């Protein structure tokens, strides 16, 4: 067993210990708060180191643990794919460990014991780490469901609000359904293999229709967890309900674990790939990206908006995976690798900037107890550091150069632009449409985050709570700084990152992305230099140069401080904070243009002279997917009650009838 695997197991053990410690501390959990987050940080560092080790190692270390079924001990293995996701979990865990101590202290005055929060956080992180390391279906499922259940308790942590309870229930239900689908998917493979360890599943090679069945089950299962449309509706309910550092872990990391599961299942275990799967993934991915972005634009609750944006970003990751499937299955292995690398890169990026944004939202929540954008404004002056880091998060998520979000989207575009190499005309015209949707998504995301940043951090404070907001503690700022710096680094220096990720396709598919790194650390050339290239460091340098040049040349203006004055008031009364453009107003044009896709309930109430405008935007996924199922179950359960009518004579009649029917059946 290599040292990297030992480190990874140690990370899990540390997290379990931390959880146990929190449970054991009970009512005194707030006293061990710092120690707890120290352990989380240690676990994150261990995972990070182990992940790097996994990415570097040439042969993946594996071992078994003395748990599980008698004939199926827990297998663990640390290959490049696991390593990559360990790295991702580690990076975010460290940030959360920095962020947590002061943030959780703010929750200590609530009625909900911190021991519960700490204990289940420990189980949650340990579950995620274990999922990534698992090398047999049984351990995978155990860890997977552990992750779901532990996060359920975290979502339900502040359970006095009915909305949180509802979100938690929905979340657990969806997680359960998804988990069962995955289990079934493994079952299909196992039925053709000789066991549940991944090696047997890999060698199972079921006949064609069955691989598609397995794929479909895995897609539904993992897609549900990842929050793909149309099964996403639980996600924007559940993620914001948890405390913010948990939201960061859920949106930033847990969704990636679902992506991991999908890659592991489809690319690694499920034998030959089929181009139809790629089209399915591409379609669903595009739909998720678009719907996520659209719904993000119209939200006014900051954390909900971020959650919808997670749907969008997971959609982008799946677009990448879909492209990869299409290319791999049609024999364009190199292009498939580019798309896969793009998807992985985006997964990592999303983990970083979404955690950053959730932590930023947490910081705002911590210092002002406000989640509603309509009450915010002018936070940048009150929380300059948080404002700066949040801006970096916004720029990254809006996929703007030279930040990290852009690199992964660029890579996705690059692989899609090679669609001309495909033989099938249908695919050739389908891929560009998917990518056009990706472009639309990018623009909508930009709109959403202009709105968020503009309404929350710029302008003037719209409420007293916000006016009283103050910058948060050093630890919370450090957590955001850590992620913000990573966002920038990953955007400016994509080459080393791609070189690192490259280990994943090399181990998984046997082919790397050598040409992308051939032209030095400065140039990113996924296909060939003549086709496309991107020199992020140069771009940053040139931007800085241009800035410097402008200031130098126009130096005479530079020396003068700008004169301050009131804002222009159109010749009327001076503008006050309530006259600012609100978040709802900002989204109105987009809401109107894409009105078909929302369920908008708009009304003006006139009572006693004052008019009140009411706007409700509902997700159509509810009425078309969730409600009918709930109704059907309800109707069925009403149907069966005639079995329990209360009359003993009827019951005896059942007995008699059953007997007669059975006798008739066997005769």
């Amino acid at each position: 067993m290599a040292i990297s695997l030992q480190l990874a197991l140690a990370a899990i053990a540390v997290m379990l210990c931390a959880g146990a410690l929190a449970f054991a501390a009970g009512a005194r959990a707030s006293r061990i708060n710092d120690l707890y987050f120290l352990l989380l940080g240690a676990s994150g560092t261990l995972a990070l180191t182990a992940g790097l080790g996994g990415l570097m190692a040439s042969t993946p270390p594996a071992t078994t643990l003395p748990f599980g079924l008698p004939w199926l001990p827990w297998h663990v293995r640390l290959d490049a794919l696991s390593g990559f996701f360990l790295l991702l979990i580690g990076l975010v865990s460290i940030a959360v460990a920095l962020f947590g101590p002061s943030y959780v202290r703010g929750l200590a005055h609530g009625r909900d014991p911190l021991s519960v929060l700490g204990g289940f956080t420990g189980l949650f992180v340990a579950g995620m780490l274990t999922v990534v390391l698992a090398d047999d279906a049984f351990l995978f499922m155990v860890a997977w469901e552990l992750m779901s259940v532990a996060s359920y308790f975290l979502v339900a942590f502040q359970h006095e609000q009915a909305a949180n309870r509802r979100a938690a229930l929905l979340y657990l239900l969806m997680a359960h359904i998804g988990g069962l689908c995955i289990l079934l998917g493994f079952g299909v493979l196992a039925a053709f293999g000789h066991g549940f360890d991944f090696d047997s599943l890999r060698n199972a090679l079921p006949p064609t229709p069955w691989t598609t069945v397995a794929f479909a089950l895995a897609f539904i299962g993992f897609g549900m967890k990842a929050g793909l449309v149309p099964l996403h509706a639980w996600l924007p309910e559940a993620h914001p309900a948890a405390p913010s550092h948990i939201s960061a872990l859920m949106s930033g990391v847990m969704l990636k674990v679902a992506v991991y599961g999908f890659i592991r299942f489809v690319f690694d275990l499920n034998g030959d790939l089929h181009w139809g799967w790629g089209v399915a993934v591409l379609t669903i991915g595009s739909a998720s990206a678009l719907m996520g972005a659209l719904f993000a634009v119209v939200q006014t609750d900051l954390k909900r908006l971020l959650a919808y944006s997670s749907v969008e970003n997971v959609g982008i990751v799946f677009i990448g995976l879909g492209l990869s499937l299409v290319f791999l299955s049609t024999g364009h292995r190199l292009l498939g690798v580019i798309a896969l690398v793009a998807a992985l890169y985006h997964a990592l990026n999303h983990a970083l900037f979404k955690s950053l944004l959730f932590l930023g939202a947490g910081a705002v929540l911590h210092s002002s107890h406000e989640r509603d954008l309509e009450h915010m404004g002018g936070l940048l002056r009150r929380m300059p550091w948080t404002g700066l880091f949040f801006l970096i998060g916004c720029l990254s998520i809006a996929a703007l150069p030279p930040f990290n979000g852009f690199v992964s989207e660029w890579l996705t575009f690059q692989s899609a632009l090679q669609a001309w190499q495909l033989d099938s005309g249908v695919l050739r015209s389908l891929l560009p449409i998917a990518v056009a949707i990706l472009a639309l998504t990018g623009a909508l995301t930009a709109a959403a985050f202009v709105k968020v940043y503009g309404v929350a951090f710029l302008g003037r404070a719209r409420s007293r709570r916000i006016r009283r907001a103050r910058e948060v503690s050093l630890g919370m700022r450090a957590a955001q700084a850590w992620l913000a710096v990573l966002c920038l680094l990953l955007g400016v220096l994509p080459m080393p990152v791609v070189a690192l990720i490259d280990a994943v396709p090399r181990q998984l598919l046997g082919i790397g992305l050598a040409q992308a790194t051939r032209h030095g650390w400065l140039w990113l050339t996924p296909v060939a230099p003549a086709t496309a290239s991107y020199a992020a460091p140069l771009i940053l340098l040139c931007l800085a140069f241009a800035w410097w040049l402008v200031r130098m040349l126009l130096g005479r203006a530079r020396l003068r401080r700008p004169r301050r004055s009131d804002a222009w008031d159109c010749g009327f009364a001076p503008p006050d904070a309530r006259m600012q453009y609100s978040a709802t107003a900002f989204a109105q044009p987009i809401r109107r243009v894409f009105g078909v896709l929302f369920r908008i309930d708009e009304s003006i109430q006139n009572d006693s002279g004052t008019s009140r405008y009411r706007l409700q935007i509902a997700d159509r996924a509810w009425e078309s997917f969730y409600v009918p199922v709930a109704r059907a179950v309800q109707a069925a359960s009403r149907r069966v009650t005639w079995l329990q009518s209360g009359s003993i004579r009827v019951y005896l009649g059942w007995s008699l009838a059953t007997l007669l029917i059975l006798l008739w059946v066997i005769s």
Partner: protein
Amino acid sequence: MTLMHLSLTEQSVFVLAALVLLSSFALLAQTRLLSAVHAFAWQGALVAAVTALMASAGDEPHLYLSAALTLTLKALLIPWMLHRLIRRLALERHVETVRRPAVITLAGAAIVVFCYWVVLPIARLELAATRNILAISLSVVLLGLLMMVARRQAVSQVIGFMSMENGLFLAAAAATGGMPLVVELGVAFDVLVAAVLFGVFFLQIRDSIDSLDVDRLNRLTETDTTTVPGTEARP
């Protein structure tokens, strides 16, 4: 194999079995509780007689014991207990209205035919004497069940239940030549305890609903009010 090839004992077993079946129908049709108890006692006696005949035919001494047990329990003790209970509960004059008696009788007949059909493959085994006794006893069991379905009176239900047990005893005695002794004793003990408990329950039921009409025992049901999905009732 026709009747002529059978011994006289076996022939009389058939006759008695047929009478048991008849008594089952009598029970089904009887609306007065006391008369039903009497019919039930006769049925018990007939079963005991069958058992005794089998004992004599098969030379199995422990069947005599079984016959004696049946006679004591089914023909004497339990009818006596029921009789006493009926008096205590003042139900001597109770006449139960059974809806659609003709339908029930027809259903009973159909059940007999069905039982015959079910047991046919077994009867083809040509295992002396036993052949259609099994069908008869099965019919008695199911007719007892049918009686429980048809009757609303708790006491009638109990009689139906006991008549099912008669069918079982008949099957055990006629078809298999008696169960092992320990089982017989155990079964008898259970039946006795059950009879006692029934008595206890009649009193409890009357105390709680002032009647012995089982249709009024309908508080525990799932059918009425509904819960609305997704609502959490009160805080």
